[in-house]
């Protein structure tokens, strides 16, 4: 685990806008938190949490309240995943970020403030934790377990590999039926 205790981390910090000029989803890990991670000359800022050698293999980010607020850029979860983060634990997430994260298999895990404080402390020392998604349980090293919830459909998508676009395409008949009875008043063509 690695800790980033700041509250209200916005997606402009997760990946600054000047890195949104590409057309693919890959290779964004190197600019994750770019302005917090690098000095103007491009060298790493040693005191930034993610630059510490122990953080290199971190898969779980324990973040402050309201993580991922601001812009809807899906580049934020793409950058986190490309860096190697697989789950983020916080007390709350911004709605669009949470949605985008789940679409990409990045787990947004919400815990209560007391557990959060404890996990931040553990993460600042790069402690380890096990995440059991099927049972929705965090397994602490001392044997304690903490429950969490990932909304039912999103969990099914992650565990059974349900493809959301595929699911929607499977509803084509219902969509056509809806369109037949709801004539558009507006057409851009």
């Amino acid at each position, binding site marked *: 685990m690695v800790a980033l205790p700041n*509250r209200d981390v916005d997606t402009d910090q997760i990946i600054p806008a000047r890195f949104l*000029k590409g057309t693919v989803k890959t290779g964004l890990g190197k600019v994750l938190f770019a302005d917090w991670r690098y000095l103007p000359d491009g060298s790493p800022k040693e005191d930034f949490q993610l630059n510490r050698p122990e953080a290199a293999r971190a898969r779980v980010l324990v973040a402050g309240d309201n993580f991922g*607020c601001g812009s*809807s850029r899906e580049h934020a979860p793409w950058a986190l995943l490309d860096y190697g983060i697989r789950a983020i634990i916080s007390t709350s997430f911004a709605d669009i970020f949470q949605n985008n994260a789940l679409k990409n298999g990045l787990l947004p895990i919400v815990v209560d403030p007391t557990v959060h404080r404890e996990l931040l402390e553990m993460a600042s020392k790069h402690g380890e934790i096990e995440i059991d998604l099927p049972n929705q349980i965090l397994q602490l090293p001392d044997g304690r377990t903490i429950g969490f919830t990932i909304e039912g459909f999103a969990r099914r998508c992650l565990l059974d590999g349900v493809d959301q676009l595929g699911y929607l395409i499977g509803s084509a008949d*219902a969509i056509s039926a809806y369109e037949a009875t709801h004539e558009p008043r507006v057409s851009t063509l």
Partner: protein
Amino acid sequence: MVQAEPECPEVLYIDLQLVHEVTSPQAFSGLRSRGLRVRRPDRTLATVDHIIPTHDRSLPIQDPLAVSLMAELRKNCEEFGVPFHDMTSGREGIVHVIGPELGLTQPGMTIVCGDSHTSTHGAFGALAFGIGSSEVEHVLATQCLLQSRPKTFEVRVDGQLRPGVSAKDIILALIARIGIGGATGHTLEYTGSAIRSLSMEERMTVCNMSIEAGARAGLVSPDDTTFQYLAGRRFAPREFDKAVAEWRRLPTDEGARFHRAITLDASSLEPMVTYGTNPGMGAAVTARIPTPSEMASANEREALEKALIYMGLKPGQPLLGQPIDVVFIGSCTNSRLSDLRAAASVLRGRKVHPRLRVLVVPGSQRVKRDAESEGLDRIFLEAGCEWREPGCSMCIAMNGDQLSPGQYAVSTSNRNFEGRQGQGGRTFLASPLTAAASAIEGAIADARRYLT
């Protein structure tokens, strides 16, 4: 609603999707790799706004990445048959400005865009919200989204705004009050006499920043102001009276119950300015910056300390008189004709401070033409401002319009996050009136001194 199965989110039909160059390439690639078409190109409209330069459009674009991103959208729109307002079409502008001005945004519609400020369109009583690129792809392919229902949050604003206080100040005051995560998981509905008396453009300013309080959507129920705005617009319904009769049935029932509610008194509001690094860190322009010790929790104390270090500001310092380097008047929050009129009313016959760079960037080509036809461009130019081509510009600083490290800006945009307007740049969010007054003084100023 197309269908709702147990254990599954509801399938929500989307009446209109707006598309821009930054969040769409991966979505179109996804379609291509699955061999899918755009289901309803006629319910889709694309434009370029985020990365287009705002200098003379006939000059070459310096940034090769911007050129290729624009070319990508052009190619995608051609291949998939999506209507496209290209950079030299004369019809381009910020997505959230052109949708309403074309009459595409209408009451009761569902509207999405790969952009968090899609909440702007809620001003018409539409359910409008931002989505990520994966969902852009879902809507392109199926015209639908899987959605769960948000909770509801009433923001009642009663009373009358005093002179010099504007729609921007209402929304900045709300966010300062409830915080930037204050409405997470909710859709805001703005009600009350002060909201009713706002024009459509002012309602758009309020709804635009709903996301800065954490709400994906914010709306105002439609009324005569809405219908009058829409009448005669290019894509307004042909059988307009019939449409109006239907729209009149949309408003929320009197006495409806909301999950949460808050009330603001418009008559007690003052012009607002932010001092920190998120839109919730705001105060009246006449106030002092808070000191960390007055914060309620350790968490907020640390956030304020960190913000003030980034901003180079002292706790307890007055906001008025804080020197600035740049003023930006533009963005989907405040780049419409009435915003430019407000700024011009302060700048008319005056000069901007000689040390300052002042950019005025209209929200669309139509806004630009309308402003020029009433001579606003001359007022800005004679005052010493730059009068530029439309686009997002220094709101997001992707197109070369940006602050240098350490520079201070008063900006009419919506985000003061670290580096948002350029790496190391420092932003004070405010209304067009406050921005114009600050441009004259070269420092944060109270526009009420300049009202005639």
